[in-house]
C-alpha cells in the first residue's frame, strides 16, 4: 500500500474523530507555542542587551573605585579617582583613544515654565566619541577654554522638554538655580529596548560640576575607549599601571575596578543564556507533556477502534498497514499541532512585543527545532500504540465490543 493512501486513510480516520483529534492537537499547539514564545523572549532580551551595549559606545572601558568587602559588609573604598588620574591617563596611555570623567548630579533643568527631570553629567569633550554621541547644532565645550564655564550641551529629549518652540542655542537653562548656557545640541540616538532614553542627557564640563555643584574633587567613574577591538585588555593593564604608579601602589589587590565592554557583554549574555535555557527547558517539558497526551489518546483510540482494526485486517490490511496508519495519525496530529503552535507562538511574540514593549526575537532555529521535535514526538509517542494495534489478532479484534 502506498504511503499516500495511508496518509489518506489516516486523515479520514482523524476527521471521523474531530473532537479527539482537536484535543490532542491542542496539547502540542500549547507546547510549541510556549517554546517559540519563550525562546523569542530570551533571544530578544539578549539581542537588545547587546544593542544597548553597543549604543554605550564602541570599545568602552569604565573605571570605578574598588569596593572592599569585609565579612560581607561593603566598605567605601579608601582610594578615589581624581582629575589628575584623568590627565595622567590622557597623557600617558597609548592604547586609549579618549578619556573622560563622569560625575552626575540629580535634579531637574528649568526654563521658564518648562522643566526636564534630567540628571546633569559632568564630562570632558572626549565623552562624545566614547559614547558615540554627535553634535547636531552648535559646538561641544572645550576642556581648557570652558573649564568651569557655565555652559551645557543637551540631548533631543531635553530640547523637547525645555524648548518646545525649538532653537535652544544661546538660551540659558537653570539647574539647581545655577544658569547654564546651551552651546550645543546632540543628534538623536533613540531609546533602548528597555525604555532608557539616550537623548535625555545634559552634559557640562566636569570641572563645572566639581566646583559649582558638588564641591568635591572626587570622581566616581572614568570612561575611556580603547583604540580598537581586541585592545581592551592591553588598555586595561595600561590604565591600571598608570593609576597604581601615581599612588605608588604595592598591595596585591587592585585599587580600582575596570570593566571593559566585552566583559560586560559576556556577563550579560551569559545571564540571558541561562534565562533562555530555563525558559526552553520549561517549554520543552510542556512539549513532552503534549507528547504523552498524544500517546494517551492514541492508546484510547486503538482500544476504542479495536473492531475497526479487526475489520481492516479481515479485508486485507497487513500488520504493517495498521502500524503505519496509526503512526501517520500521530505524526499528522503532532505536525499539525506544530504548525499551528509555531503560528500561534509567532503571533504571541508579536503581541508581547507590541503590547508590553518587550524585545522579542523569533529565531528560525527554534521554529525548525520545534518542527523536528514535533515529528519525533509523533513517531516516538505514536509507536507503541500503533504497534499494539498492528499486533492484534483479527478474529479477537472483530469480536471486541
Amino acid at each position: 500500500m502506498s504511503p499516500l493512501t495511508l496518509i489518506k486513510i489516516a486523515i479520514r480516520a482523524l476527521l471521523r474523530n474531530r473532537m479527539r483529534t482537536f484535543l490532542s492537537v491542542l496539547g502540542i499547539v500549547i507546547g510549541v507555542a510556549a517554546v517559540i514564545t519563550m525562546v523569542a523572549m530570551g533571544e530578544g532580551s539578549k539581542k537588545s542587551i547587546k544593542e544597548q551595549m553597543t549604543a554605550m559606545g564602541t570599545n568602552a572601558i569604565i573605571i570605578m573605585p574598588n569596593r572592599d568587602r569585609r565579612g560581607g559588609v561593603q566598605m567605601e573604598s579608601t582610594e578615589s579617582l581624581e582629575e589628575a588620574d584623568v590627565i595622567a591617563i590622557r597623557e600617558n596611555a597609548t592604547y586609549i583613544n579618549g578619556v573622560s570623567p563622569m560625575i552626575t548630579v540629580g535634579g531637574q533643568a528649568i526654563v521658564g515654565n518648562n522643566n526636564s527631570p534630567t540628571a546633569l553629567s559632568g564630562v570632558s569633550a572626549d565623552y562624545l566619541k566614547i559614547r558615540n554621541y554627535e553634535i547636531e547644532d552648535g559646538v561641544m565645550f572645550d576642556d581648557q577654554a570652558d573649564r568651569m564655564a557655565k555652559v551645557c550641551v543637551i540631548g533631543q529629549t531635553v530640547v523637547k522638554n525645555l524648548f518646545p518652540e525649538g532653537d535652544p542655542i544661546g538660551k540659558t537653562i537653570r539647574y539647581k538655580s545655577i544658569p547654564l548656557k546651551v552651546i550645543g545640541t546632540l543628534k538623536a540616538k533613540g531609546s533602548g529596548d528597555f525604555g532608557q532614553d539616550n537623548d535625555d542627557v545634559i552634559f557640562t564640563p566636569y570641572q563645572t560640576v566639581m566646583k559649582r555643584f558638588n564641591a568635591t574633587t572626587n570622581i566616581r567613574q572614568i570612561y575611556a575607549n580603547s583604540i580598537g577591538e581586541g585592545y581592551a585588555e592591553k588598555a586595561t593593564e595600561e590604565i591600571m599601571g598608570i593609576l597604581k604608579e601615581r599612588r605608588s601602589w604595592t598591595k596585591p589587590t587592585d585599587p580600582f575596578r575596570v570593566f571593559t565592554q566585552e566583559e560586560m557583554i559576556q556577563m550579560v549574555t551569559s545571564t540571558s543564556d541561562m534565562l533562555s535555557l530555563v525558559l526552553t527547558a520549561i517549554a520543552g517539558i510542556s512539549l513532552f507533556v503534549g507528547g504523552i497526551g498524544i500517546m494517551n489518546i492514541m492508546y484510547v483510540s486503538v482500544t476504542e477502534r479495536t473492531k475497526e482494526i479487526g475489520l481492516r485486517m479481515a479485508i486485507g490490511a497487513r500488520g504493517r498497514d495498521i502500524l503505519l496508519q496509526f503512526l501517520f495519525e500521530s505524526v499528522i496530529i503532532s505536525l499539525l499541532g506544530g504548525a499551528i503552535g509555531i503560528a500561534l507562538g509567532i503571533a504571541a511574540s508579536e503581541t508581547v512585543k507590541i503590547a508590553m514593549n518587550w524585545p522579542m526575537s523569533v529565531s528560525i532555529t527554534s521554529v525548525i527545532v520545534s518542527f523536528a521535535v514535533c515529528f519525533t514526538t509523533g513517531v516516538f509517542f505514536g509507536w507503541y500504540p500503533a504497534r499494539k494495534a498492528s499486533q492484534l489478532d483479527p478474529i479477537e479484534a472483530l469480536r471486541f465490543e
Partner: protein
Amino acid sequence: MTTETPILSVKNLHRDFKMGDETVHALRGVSFDIHRGEFVTIMGTSGSGKSTMLNILGCMDRPTSGHYILDGEHTEKLKRDALAKIRSQKLGFVFQSYNLLSRTTAIENVELPLLYNSKISSAERRRRAVEALERVGLVDRMNHLPNQLSGGQQQRVAIARALVNDPVIILADEATGNLDTRTSYEIMMIFQELNRQGKTIAFVTHEPDIATFSGRTITLRDGLLKKDVKNETVQDAKTAFEALPPPENFDN
C-alpha cells in the same frame, strides 16, 4: 464437475484451542471440497465449530493440523502478511454485525478493501465500488452514513464491500442473523443472484429455511462433518419473499 479442481479444499482439518490446562477441540478432522460456482450453507448447533471453520476458510486463522488449499495455494504454510494478501485479493467476508466503519459513507466503506491493494488507482477504485453498490441495489444511497441506513441496507453495503475485490469465494457468517425474516429473504435474493452470476459462496447459518436457498448443505456437529447433502429442490428466495405475509400484518 468432480474432475475439475475444487476452488477450495480442506483435508482432515483440526483446530484446538488451549484454555489453560484444557484443550477445546473445535474442529476434529473435517474434509470437504467446494467447487467453483457452488452455493454452500454450513449448518450446525451452537458450538459445533461453524465460525471456527469459516475463520480458517477466510484465512484469518490457521488450522492446528490438516490442509487447506484455496485456489491452488496451500495456505497452512503461509505467514501473517501472505494471509493478509490472500484476504485482500481472493476473499470477501460478510459478518453478522455488518462491521461497517461508522461516520464513513457507504461508498467509502465499499472502497475500503481496494485501499489495501496498491495496484488499483483511485478512479478504478471508485468505479468498482459504484458497480458493487449497483449489484446490491444501493447506488442511490452511496453517500449515506451507516447510521442513516436500515440493518438490511447496511448488510447490503457489507455485501458490496465483499464483492468489490472480485473474490474467488464469498464467506458469510450468520449474515442474516440480525435481520427479520423479510429482510433475511431479501438478502438471500442478493446472494442467490450473485451465485447465478457465478460467485462461489459459503454461508454459515443455523436457520434451516435459509439453508433451503442453497444448492448444498454441510452440517457440523462437535467439530466433525456430520452431513454433506446436495439440495435437490433449491428454493427461490424471491418466490419465498413474495409468499411471506405483507409487513402491515405486524401491526395487528
